[in-house]
């Protein structure tokens, strides 16, 4: 149950409790929630639709979770990513990294998001107020972000 791809919303408190319940070796829980904003490049957004590659998505997310767990000696990891049509203000993704120590939890969580953004097969399509749809372009900044994990640490 490390990774889940679903249309339904997630509950961060439930997920953190599930990872930490009964464990007293976890001193740090870093988490990240990505949300749909109501603008894109300055234009109002009516909705966002997330498509993915069933089967491959789960494999990639599991692989990213395994790599992060080993690299940052994480005690527990959780990734939940939503698919389908979402509205501004809706949650998109939840990533949680647990560790005995704060720096590992923070780094693990950031690493998970950076890798997810550049490797997990999800695609966002934005719907404008007039109903027109546009596929979101990949951001150079996301690829720049991932490079720091190959340079240092």
């Amino acid at each position, binding site marked *: 149950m490390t990774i889940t791809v679903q249309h339904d919303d997630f509950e961060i408190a439930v997920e953190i409790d599930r990872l930490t319940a009964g464990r007293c070796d976890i001193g740090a829980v870093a988490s990240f929630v990505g949300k749909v904003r109501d603008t894109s490049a300055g234009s109002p957004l009516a909705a966002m639709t997330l498509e993915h590659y069933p089967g491959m998505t789960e494999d990639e997310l599991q692989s990213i979770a395994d790599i992060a767990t080993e690299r940052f000696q994480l005690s527990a990891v959780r990734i939940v990513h939503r698919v389908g049509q979402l509205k501004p203000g809706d949650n998109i993704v939840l990533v949680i990294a647990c560790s005995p120590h704060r720096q590992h939890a923070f780094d693990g969580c950031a690493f998970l998001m950076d890798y*997810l953004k550049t490797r997990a*097969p999800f695609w966002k399509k934005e719907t404008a107020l007039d109903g027109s749809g546009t596929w979101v372009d990949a951001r150079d900044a996301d690829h720049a972000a991932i490079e720091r994990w190959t340079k240092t640490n």
Partner: protein
Amino acid sequence: MTMAIATQMTERIVTVRYFAWVRERTGRSDDVISLPAHVVTIAELMSLLAARGEGYAEAFKHPPSIRVARDRVHVQQSAEIGTAREIGFFPPVTGG
């Protein structure tokens, strides 16, 4: 020699899957393709697909914009299809 003949005689079938704007341009989610013997790499498969019609030509007209998975693992377009059962084509990912 016997091996080579056997390989040539075996029909190679792959399921090709399309996502995001690649899917929208081809107008299909997937195709089952019988690979001609001369199609060895994924790049060669892309050329084959581009010849299937107008939407496919549009989808595959700019190969650098397309990312590829072989049996659900990221690979380069120069990779060989080999014994893969599934090839996926899609734009650079934008999740998270």
